[in-house]
């Protein structure tokens, strides 16, 4: 079939090579014969070309060729090769050449096709090989997997067998267990039965033994007492009567009753104690909670509501106190409910405090810088202004000097004096300049001190805030009803103040001030309010005074003041310097204030 297939494209359909083989198949039967016949012909024609056409059979040959050509469809309309002369052995060359050419063309094309087909065949054959190899491999694989499968099947079968045996084993084991259990049960019952029987027997034996022993009137069985004793309580023994049994019963119930009463009493006592504790706790809670809304100046709606609530609670608490003694169900419930409520509120409050503390902590960090910075900047501004003033004074002085110089130039008579004056003035100016420099330096120092003090103040304030927070916390913790409140507030509070605990609660300065005053009022604790107030300028200066450096600087300043004053005294005679002196005075007005404050 392959052979046939390769020959197919020889036909006219070279261009339609790609057309599916089915179309070729349909075409093939009609053409097959032609090709079969033509091919051997063409092959042989190369070898026996001379044998095909001779001088003698030229016309036949030609006609044959014509026929052939006709059949090939090359010269269908006209005879391609005609004998130029019917009798002669010549052929019409042009059509012959044409035919030849066409044949050659065809031949070339066929050759080309052939080549392609060969290539194609090579490819397909290699493909085929590959596929065959693949096929064989797959076959091997298949075989292998089949073998594997059979193996697996085998193992599965074995496993199933095993399972079956195991299941049967399990069944037998289960049976065994059941059997054993039943055996155990039966043994147990048997044992208990036997034990009972034995016990009964033993009892019977004992009975018998005692009977025998009693019956034998054991002579040995006796008590030999010199003389009988009196009862330990000194009373005589009673006859056994129904009365005594009744009295025994009564006695027993009495002792039982006593015991129950005792236990009840202790329970009541305990209950009362607990109630007292509860009551106290409640009171303390009210105490703690009530001053809070008053203290928080930001009269939030929440706070006011709380206050109202706590008022109501207080009333309820009072009523509870009244009903405490009548320990009725309702009162108790009320008490526990109110306590629960208070507790909830307290918890909320604590949570709020917590959040506040965290807020304040952040705020404080900023406050620490902001608060002193305000005053600091104010002070700086003032100093700057003063420096400006000083500069202005100097400028004015210079102008005046210029004027004076000018006027003195105008005055011809005073030329001599002028020189003296200028010299003197120069000297004085130099002196003034020196003074000014010194003042400026002093100012700088003071400014530095001030900033230091302000920072220290801020730090102190922060520490105080921490102290206060811890103190408040301690105070709160000590408010618990289990410890003596007063003792705790005096001793523990102090210790809390002295020992600086970790700052857990920080409250903003302004808020704390108010809250603090109220809490102190309620808890009547003494001192430590003083250092907490917002510092006024005077206090600021006071703190400044406390610094040893500042005091020394102040002294030096005082010296300066004196110096300057002496200089000014000297200057008093000079009219033109009046203004400078005034300026100096104003500059030192600050120092004067300080002095007066000390």
């Amino acid at each position: 079939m392959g052979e046939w297939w390769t020959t197919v494209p020889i036909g006219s359909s070279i261009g339609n090579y790609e057309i599916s083989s089915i179309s070729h198949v349909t075409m093939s039967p009609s053409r097959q014969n032609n090709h079969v016949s033509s091919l051997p012909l063409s092959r042989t024609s190369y070898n026996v070309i001379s044998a095909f056409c001779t001088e003698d059979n030229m016309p036949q040959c030609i006609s044959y060729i014509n026929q052939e050509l006709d059949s090939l469809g090359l010269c269908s309309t006209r005879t391609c090769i005609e004998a130029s002369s019917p009798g002669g052995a010549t052929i019409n060359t042009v059509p012959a050449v044409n035919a030849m050419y066409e044949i050659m063309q065809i031949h070339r094309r066929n050759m080309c096709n052939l080549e392609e087909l060969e290539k194609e065949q090579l490819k397909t054959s290699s493909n085929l090989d590959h596929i065959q190899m693949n096929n064989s491999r797959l076959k091997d694989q298949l075989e292998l997997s089949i073998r594997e499968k059979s193996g697996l099947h085998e193992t599965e079968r074995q496993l199933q067998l095993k399972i079956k045996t195991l299941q049967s084993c399990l069944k037998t084991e289960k049976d065994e267990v059941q059997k054993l259990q039943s055996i155990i049960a039966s043994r147990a019952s048997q044992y208990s039965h036997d034990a009972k029987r034995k016990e009964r027997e033993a009892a019977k034996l004992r009975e018998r033994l005692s009977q025998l022993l009693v019956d034998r009137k054991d002579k040995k069985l006796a008590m030999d007492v010199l003389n009988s004793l009196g009862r330990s309580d000194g009373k005589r023994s009673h006859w056994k009567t129904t009365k005594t049994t009744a009295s025994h019963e009564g006695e027993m119930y009495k002792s039982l009753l006593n015991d129950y009463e005792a236990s009840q009493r202790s329970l009541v006592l305990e209950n009362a104690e607990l109630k007292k504790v509860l009551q106290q706790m409640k009171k303390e809670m009210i105490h703690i909670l009530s001053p809070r809304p008053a203290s928080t100046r930001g009269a939030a709606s929440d706070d006011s509501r709380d206050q109202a609530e706590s008022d109501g609670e207080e009333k309820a608490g009072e009523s509870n106190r009244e009903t405490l003694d009548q320990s009725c169900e309702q009162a108790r419930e009320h008490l526990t409910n109110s306590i629960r409520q208070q507790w909830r509120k307290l918890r909320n409050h604590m949570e709020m405090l917590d959040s506040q503390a965290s807020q304040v902590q952040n705020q404080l960090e900023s406050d620490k810088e902001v608060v002193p910075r305000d005053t600091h900047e104010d002070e700086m501004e003032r100093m700057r202004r003063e420096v400006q003033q000083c500069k202005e004074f100097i400028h004015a002085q210079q102008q005046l000097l210029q004027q004076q110089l000018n006027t003195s130039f105008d005055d011809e008579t005073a030329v001599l004096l002028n020189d003296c004056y200028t010299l003197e003035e120069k000297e004085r100016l130099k002196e003034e300049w020196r003074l000014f420099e010194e003042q400026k330096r002093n100012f700088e120092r003071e400014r530095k001190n001030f900033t230091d003090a302000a920072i220290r103040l801020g730090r102190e304030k922060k520490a105080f805030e921490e102290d206060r927070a811890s103190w408040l916390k301690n105070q709160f913790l000590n408010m618990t009803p289990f410890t003596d409140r007063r003792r705790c507030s005096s001793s523990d509070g102090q210790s809390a103040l002295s020992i600086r605990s970790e700052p857990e609660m920080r409250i903003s300065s302004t808020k704390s001030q108010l809250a603090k005053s109220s809490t102190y009022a309620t808890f009547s604790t003494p001192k430590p309010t003083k250092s907490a107030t917002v510092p006024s300028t005077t206090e600021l200066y006071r703190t400044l005074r406390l610094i040893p450096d500042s005091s020394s600087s102040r002294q030096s300043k005082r010296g300066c003041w004196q110096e300057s004053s002496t200089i000014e005294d000297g200057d008093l005679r000079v009219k033109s310097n009046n203004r400078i002196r005034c300026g100096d005075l104003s500059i030192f007005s600050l120092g004067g204030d300080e002095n007066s404050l000390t």
Partner: protein
Amino acid sequence: MNFSEVFKQSNQLCKVSPDGKYLATCVQYRLVVRDVGTLQILQLYTCLDQISHMDWSSDSLFILCAMYKRGLVQVWSLEQPDWHCKIDEGSIGLVSSRWSPDGRHILNTTEFHLRVTVWSLCTKAVSYIKYPKACQKGIDFSRDGCYMALAERRDCKDFVSVFVCDDWHLLRHFETETQDLAGLEWSPNGCVLAVWDSCLEYKVLLYSLDGRLLSTYSAYEWSLGVKSVTWSPSSQFLAIGSYDEKVRILNHITWKKITQFEHPATISNTKAVVYKEVVKRPAVGSDDLSLHNITIGTTLFNTQSKYEICPTPVQLPVVKPDPDRANPKIGVSTVAFSSDSRYLATKNDNMANVVWVWDMQKMSLEAVLEQTSAVRCLQWDPRRPRLAVCTGNTKLYLWSPAGCVSVQVPTEGGFQVQSLNWHCSGDSLILLGKEQLCLCYMDHDQEDK
């Protein structure tokens, strides 16, 4: 701390009278009564045979001496030395003899627990109580001496009879819900009776005086159960030691478990103080090994010991019990409350060297005493929270909340303390050796003087 000289005794029979004035000791067949203060012999009685049991009457006037082998009981009067009383149980035998709380009756349990014979010294009357049960603790008198509870067994069922001790009137008789009753004990206030089942079943029953079942407690099933039961002196707690190495504390209101104390092999509780006895052998130099030293004896063989406080966690020595043997050495066998109910001392049998002291207020472990040898006996001071422990060697160990001390008994001949008894005043302690006894006076005594 002072020690008296050593006296002879046999069978560890040595008891101080309930009023604390006299000390009675038995030496073979002789009964010696001494004054506790001077230790001088006040009376000397001779019994018919070797004494196997001896007991004081509650009013400290009479002493009972039982000779079980002969089935005999002899009673002696301290006030009238020539007065005598002899009770012969005859061929029925005798296994146990005790005073009734009024000190005028003697209760004898016959062999095979056939019956309990009640002999009255006042009227010479004899009464019998049948069917007593042979068990761990079958008879208990209430603390005030009014009632006696007796465990009985009839028709393979357990019963409890409550008698009025005054005239032996049967007050109550009720069946208990036990498989095999093992013991019973009155609460110190005499209103609740604790009854527990044998070790095969964990079951503790609480009965009211009038026989009502107040509560039943069972911690677990299918395992060996109760090993020891003790009431706190305040009647507030009932401590139950069991085979699972735990002590469970029941409260007196709901009879539910308050807490349980475990006895782990590793103590990681950092609040507990672990005292470990450390033995320090005296360095014996070559020149010390003289004949002189050896003849003097005791000091050479006696080792010094002291307590060291171990930092937790501490690993305690544990002996694994043989599971195939009956009554395995495991579980809490000793539970003892201090006189003020503040502390509880326990001993776990598979850690025989260790005494545990628990704080009943904090409900936590207070101290652990790790001894070098197995603890033989432990007893609380009847007046103070002070615990005396002996381990069968020549030392006495005392624990108090302040600390722990090991005292060498300074007697010759290697006095080994097997058991100990506090004097009721808590000022002295009677140490019992194998055949000797010795009194130990506490320092407190001297301080008072």
